[in-house]
């Protein structure tokens, strides 16, 4: 049984004037198995972020059904860690305090945070160090560069070790080298902890390198128009991205996106 499933989902955002608005996604159907790493690609504005919000219960479809961990989603799901397209850090909290936020909300950490504060702080600092932000815990978000903010937001999605990780273009504002470094971080975490990941990205190499399966969405109103299983053996080394097998897959996906844009 799939861990996350969207079944014939239609979603529209209401107009400001209260009108019916337009469809953002239509007939969206997808299934993600437990522990699977799925990447979603598609033209800008096709409803990828909407998909993420539907799957986490931040938005509710007006038609169709969303299920997570076997249950119909009627409220924000509690097992997800989410990194949004923009960093959305709280400006009044330091980087470290921003990282501790999920632990202040999510059970069982919530009950333990007072008692185990130093342990949690250490965990946050380790996580920061793993994305190259060691020693930046005391800085406020506005003292960080855009890429550093995004890395922080990635850490925030991970800190409470969620069973479902939702990443909406988390590496968008990063340089190529940091980006590849973070691919490694995510790859290793996924391998070690076995959580389920849904990753939205515009970078086809990123999708192919990380994912078990890549889903291609059509232009708005978005739905899945193509699905590509990536059978490259794991653990994947960055070197794999320079093989011809890899570039063939990227090339093939690119063709589908070009079609989807039309």
């Amino acid at each position: 049984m799939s861990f996350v499933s969207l079944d014939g989902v239609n979603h529209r955002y209401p107009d400001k004037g209260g009108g019916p608005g337009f469809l953002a996604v239509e007939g969206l159907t997808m299934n993600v198995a437990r522990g699977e790493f799925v990447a979603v690609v598609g033209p800008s504005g096709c409803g990828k972020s909407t998909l993420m919000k539907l799957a986490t219960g931040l938005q509710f479809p007006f038609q169709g059904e969303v299920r997570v961990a076997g249950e119909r989603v009627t409220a924000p799901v509690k097992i997800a860690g989410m990194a949004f397209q923009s960093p959305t850090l709280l400006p009044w909290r330091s980087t470290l305090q921003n990282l501790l936020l999920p632990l202040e909300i999510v059970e069982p950490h919530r009950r333990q945070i007072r008692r185990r504060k130093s342990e949690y702080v250490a965990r946050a600092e380790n996580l920061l160090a793993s994305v190259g932000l060691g020693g930046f815990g005391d800085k406020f978000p506005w003292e960080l560069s855009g890429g550093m903010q995004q890395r922080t937001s990635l850490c925030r999605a991970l800190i409470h070790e969620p069973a479902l990780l939702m990443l909406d273009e988390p590496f968008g504002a990063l340089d190529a080298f940091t980006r590849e470094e973070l691919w490694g971080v995510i790859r290793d975490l996924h391998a070690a902890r076995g959580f389920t990941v849904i990753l939205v990205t515009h970078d086809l190499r990123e999708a192919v390198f990380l994912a078990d399966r890549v889903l291609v969405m059509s232009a708005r109103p978005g739905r899945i128009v193509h699905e590509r299983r990536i059978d490259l053996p794991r653990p994947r080394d960055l070197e794999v991205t320079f093989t011809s097998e890899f570039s063939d897959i990227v090339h093939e996906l690119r063709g589908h996106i070009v079609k989807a844009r039309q």
Partner: protein
Amino acid sequence: MNRRFDMVRAAPWLFTLAFLAIWEGSVHILKIPPFFLPPPTLVAKTFVEFWRPIYTNSLFTLSTTMVGFALAVGFGLLLGLVIGWSRTIYAGTYPLMIGFNAIPKVAIVPILVLWFGIGFIPAALTAFLISFFPIVVNVATGLATIEPELEDVLKALGASKLDIMRKIGIPRTLPYFFGSLKIAITLAFVGSVISESIASNHGIGNLMLQAQAQFQVPLVFAGLVALAIEGIVMYWLMAVLERRMTGWAQRSGFAQT
């Protein structure tokens, strides 16, 4: 190292001095009689001469103002949070609040006197009533303008509405709250002085009214100066508090110059 004359730092003093100089100069040149408009030097002399009654009455005004202001902060913050919390309460209280705020507070003083007699209580209550509204409106606005993206961060973690209020609502609203304190404290002075000059035997308002009745115009102005000083000091305190508490919100070039 920096021996360059800092124009921005000097500006408040220079402008104040210039204002006083022009005032003094005009009074002398235009030969304005002191019972019409006393020159600043005469006001200063009177201030020193009458420092005792000015001092005690200032203290009275300050205490009525601060009591009213404290009430306004407490109730304003509470009501603002409640209104920001619930759309129903917002919709329900809105017309009442607008109507209430539209009433000139001078018109309420006689009612307060009827209920509480003259003196301290009506002055403090007038200060409260007049300074309460901007706090409520600002706190409610702060809550209403929270970015949905920030809310989503917490919702995605399964946070309750109370969590969202505590972790985002309140910190996010603090800059609005502290900003409103600067307005509220000046209004509170207006309220207490109005009430004192109508219904009190103490306070700067009363002192000025009596001075005016006896044609001691320089003393009226000395009273004004005392009020201005109190107002500036309290405003400055609120501004310092604002910067202390909400430094994160004051990063733009506008906030610093």
